[in-house]
């Protein structure tokens, strides 16, 4: 396992931890973008170039901004009155730890059975052309459905968050 992988995953995990543990919500959001960047780099390292750039474009470009806007709109940036954490933080952490333990244990146990252990094959070069063709041939139905979903989400989000007229007066 080369040094870059450790570096990037360390960055991602640090970002994630910061996003979860920091007091100031805006800082969490920014830490989140760092985590997203880390994950994007992991994607690039795994050879999924398109996915990596899509991740950056979608998450860092849009979702992060969205989160930040949401924070500002709901006045989250001021420190909350009654504590940052919910009532039983420890139980939450314990449960998360338990889940990680189970997942880790499962991964380690099945390490031998995992594929690709032996063939350190070179990263498959995936060009955008292949992706385009795949999208248009095998995954055309999911593509249309996702298109519909996105439009619906777009309109839905606007309506949900719209400031009703009558409420103003």
């Amino acid at each position, binding site marked *: 396992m080369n040094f870059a992988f450790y570096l990037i995953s360390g960055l991602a995990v640090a970002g994630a931890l910061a996003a979860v543990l920091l007091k100031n919500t805006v800082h969490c959001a920014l830490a989140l973008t760092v985590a997203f960047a880390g994950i994007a780099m992991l994607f690039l390292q795994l050879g999924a170039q398109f996915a990596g750039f899509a991740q950056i474009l979608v998450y860092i470009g849009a979702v992060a901004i969205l989160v930040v806007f949401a924070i500002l709109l709901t006045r989250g940036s001021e420190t909350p009155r009654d504590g940052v954490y*919910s009532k039983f933080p420890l*139980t*939450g952490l314990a*449960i*998360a730890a*338990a*889940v990680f333990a*189970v*997942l880790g*244990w*499962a991964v380690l*146990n099945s390490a031998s059975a995992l594929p690709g252990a032996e063939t350190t094959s070179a990263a498959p070069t995936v060009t955008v052309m292949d992706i385009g063709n795949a999208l248009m041939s095998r995954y055309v139905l999911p593509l249309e459905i996702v298109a519909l979903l996105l439009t619906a989400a777009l309109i839905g989000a606007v309506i949900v968050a719209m400031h009703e007229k009558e409420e103003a007066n």
Partner: protein
Amino acid sequence: MQEAISFTPQTAASGIAQMLWLIPAVPMLASGVIALLKQPKRRTAATLAIGSLGFSLLVALAAFGHVLSGWSHGAAVRETVNFTWIQFGSTNVDLGWVLDPLSAVMLVMVTFVGLLIFIYSTGYMAHDENFTRFFCFLSLFAGAMLGVVIANSLLLLFMCWELVGLTSYLLIGFWYFKPSAAAAAKKAFLTTRVGDVFFLLGIVWLFAQTGTLLFYNGGTGSMEETALGGLLAQHAGWGLTAAGAIGLLIFAGAAGKSGQFPLHVWLPDAMEGPTPVSALIHAATMVAAGVYLIARVYPLMSAGAEMHGVLIGSTAALTVVTWVGAFTAVFASLIAVAQNDIKRILAYSTVAQLGYMMAGLGMGGVAVGMFHLIAHAFFKALLFMGAGSVIHGCNDEQDIRRMGGLKADMPLTFVTYAAGMLALCGFPILAGFWSKDGILEAGSIWSVSRGPFYMLVFGALLTAFYMTRQVGYVFFGHYRGTKHAHESPKVMVVPLAILAFFAVTLGLIGTPAWPWFRAFLNGQPAEFDLHAFFEPGILALMGTSTAVVFVGLGLGWWLYVGKSPNPEDPDVLEAAAPLPWKWLSNRLYMDELYGATVIAFYGWWGRVADWLDRRVWGGMVSAVAWLTSLGAELNRFLDAKVVDGGFDKGCEEISTSGGLLSQMQNGRVQTYLRILALALVGLAAILIWSSRA
């Protein structure tokens, strides 16, 4: 004698028959209008009543003329107009009216006498402030009486019969503020009611048997052969045929209305009403209704009588009628002897004379009874109106012991009163003599027994005696009253004169020599034949009756005329025979007898019913109530213990446990997430643990 009457078959009812219904309708209408008038409208009430009755008189005369002309052409007239009143299911109830000699005669008698009494009462009631109400009831009575007369259906007859009963109650109790008048009215109504119940039973039985209540309906009426044949075939126990039994039931109704023996108690008390009422209702018309009813139903009563050569046999029903009539005659005459009230004497004499009529009907047939009825109507109305003018003259004094010597003060009244008294007693050649003679003749040759004949003769004697006693007390001797007597006004005396004339001349139409009346009623030609007098028994019979009358008059004259005893000391007879006198003056204690028996019985029966109701039914109801309360108690116990204890407790358990579960859904997203994660961990652990082998 009763011969088969040949009546012309029912032709289309002539014009006058069609209009016959106007006779009762107009007076009734008049009474309706008078009822609406205000009390002070006295003149209009009088004119309306008299006018309506006058119109009825004219129509009645026209009808009588029509029947007379029919009869004179040798064909007796009987025209009926029938119509269906109500229809239920297949059967329908018919009503109708009939015009035949019997109803024609009665129509004329009732309207004529009624008119005279109406005119008389305008004078008599002049001082009474309820004048309009009086005339309303009078015209209503006249309408009802005329309805009874023309009725061709027993049902219509019964309806008018009840209406007559009602008006008699209203008129007797006219001075309702007098308790005695109110009680008398109630008594009259109830006793006639007892009679009417039997009468209704008879009607229903007849309707059940013959299916129709019409008397004459072109052959199918109840009085015609086909129905009578059916009735004779039936046997109704005690040896009576159905016809006989129905006849007796109808006779009970008639007895009630005409005051025969068992139900006569109300008639003397009815004198509480004003005198014109007594004259009209309790002398001339209403009481005659019972006799007229028996005459109308005569074919039914005499159905199945065997013929003994010329003499006609007598059925059980007619026998009973005769005996009751005879006994009532004697009984009433005896009581009349010991009475001191002027109107009460006349009342008992009316009861007696009605007994005569019933006996006449029973023995001699319709013509004999009816002739005496017509004659009696005239002179009894005269006597009552005469008494009325006497009372009016003596300033409403009714006790004869306080009158006397009115011969001088009221000459006209005295003359007319004397004529009426002589006619009543049966003084020769006056109306009463011929009619009584007819009855006695029938009695002498009656096939069943000669008892009634002797009783009637003794009755005639008594009648003559108490009438002379009364005249002696009232008109002879010196005036014992307090106030000065004065003659009545002309409007009262003129009717008296008219009636007196008829009381004298009426006898001529029924003498044995020229029996016009019997011929007219039976529809036979009447020829003048002096030889009739020389029939074997006629002269002897006339001789005995005149002898009896003279004996009675002489006895009375000897005892009472000119003595004018002062009111306090006892009557002459009383001194002679105190005990029987006391019995007779107390009306043979009939009222007390009834009081002891019937009233007592009712009282006892009331208590029994009360006991029954209180103990038996009450007991049952309370038992049921107790049961339901017991059930409710059980239910409450069940509900509390079983349902609450068991079922509800169970439900509570479930809901509390439900509460625990609902803690899980506390709406906080993170708790759900925690549960989710835990489940994931648990599932993974299980999977891994199970696959570790």
